[in-house]
């Protein structure tokens, strides 16, 4: 399986990725409230499909977000972050 490397603007957000059981958990902090709309669009993308457990999206106070992503939706999640310009670059190496 190819490894994924991605980049984001550290002035706008902080993004940490950890293993959570069989899933991947993202902890996201937005430094700019304007980005909430972009992240909301990522959530809506996954809510509009017919899969319920593809991602679990949790909102915490102070623009902190926790997203638990099922392994098979990992790439799709990154692509949607990129599509909403929350990621600057994604590369499969």
């Amino acid at each position, binding site marked *: 399986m190819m490894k994924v490397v991605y980049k984001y603007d550290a002035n706008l957000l902080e993004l940490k990725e950890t293993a959570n059981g069989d899933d991947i958990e993202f902890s996201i902090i937005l430094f700019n409230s304007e980005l909430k709309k972009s992240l*909301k669009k990522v959530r809506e993308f996954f809510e509009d499909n*017919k*899969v*319920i457990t593809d991602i*679990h999206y949790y*909102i915490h*106070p102070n623009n902190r977000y926790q997203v638990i992503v099922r392994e098979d939706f990992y790439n799709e999640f990154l692509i949607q972050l990129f599509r909403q310009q929350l990621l600057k670059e994604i590369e499969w190496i």
Partner: protein
Amino acid sequence: MSTQAIIAIGVFLVTYAFIVTEKIHRTIIAMTGGIMMVLLGIVGQEKALHHIDFNTLGLLTGMMIIVAITAETGLFKYIAIWAAKKVNGDPLRILLVLGLITALGSAFLDNVTTVLLMVPVTFSITRQLRVNPIPFLITEIIASNIGGTSTLIGDPPNIMLGSAVKELTFMAFINNLTAISFFILFVNIGILAFIYRKQLRTSSELKATLMDLDEKEEITDKTLLIKSLIALTVTILGFFLHQLLHIESATVALTGAFLLLLLTGEGYLDKAFSKVEWTTIFFFIGLFVLVSGLIETGVISLLADYSVHLTGGDVASTSILILWVSAIASAFIDNIPFVATMIPMIKDMGELGVNNLEPLWWSLSLGACLGGNGTLIGASANVIVAGLAAKEGHSITFGKFLLIAFPLMILSIIICTIYIYLRYLI
């Protein structure tokens, strides 16, 4: 028995058999059966249209529009997370509150809609706490069917009963079924909590993460929420007052729906209408015409006559018979066609000398609605939740559900038998 009656029975039984086997979509089958009744000259088109209960259809459509728009606001997610936090993220107590929320939701909304709103948030909460979602999903199925029993608008059999019998108003359902339904709910949820108690444990760290959630952020559109709440309040008030105002329940639901569309503007029109389950609406239309064939050819009267003969016209034994037959039948077949057949039959029993029909109506409602809890195929909500769970890798098998739900259903019907006997028959 006339040739027409024999043909009507044939069409009815073949249609019913196809509905039970679920090989072809039930709407296609019900509509085909209804059309056959007209094509074979058993009922004329005018008579067939006359038998379609537009009050049932209007009520369903109105409520579906209201729910479709309200769901956009994030209100249901807010309520579920708020409730989970109120019980400090304890899984056992979350099972209780989600069951209660599902029952309350199902009392005022369609059961399928309620579980469709509850299942995603249930997966979300259980994933956060790393607990098995199956106990929660089974509890929600059972709570949904019990909650739906408690009001006129909660479950299609009740909507049909309220529409067919003038005396069965929204308040009549509240006065006769709400208390007993919620008593049965607490008994069922209590037993489920006891059965699943060992699976419902999590760490204090995970509880703390859940407690840190900001449920207010789940509300995606505050203006829309206010408009939805206005429409919902008007609608629910309307249901409570519809007898006093001399308006039918469909008028109340459609008033609420179009008031909401007036408030939101036409931007929501297409989306709201696309969320109306037209397949369900046409399923009802087909059934009404199908049953009209049995009514017009005198088959229903014959069945009523036979039932009265069987019970000697005794109200007590007829009520208990209806309660148990409805429950067992509804555990295995769709309760909507069953109730559609039973309503004219009970009306005919009244004409045949059974002087107090009230216990019979409540027995039919309790049996048909609660019977749906007996098996995984007993009600639409059961099938929907099991389907969603299986797709997400959590299988609720027919056997697994039967083992837990069937005894609970039997217990519920025993409670109902005592209730019907004590309240109406002595």
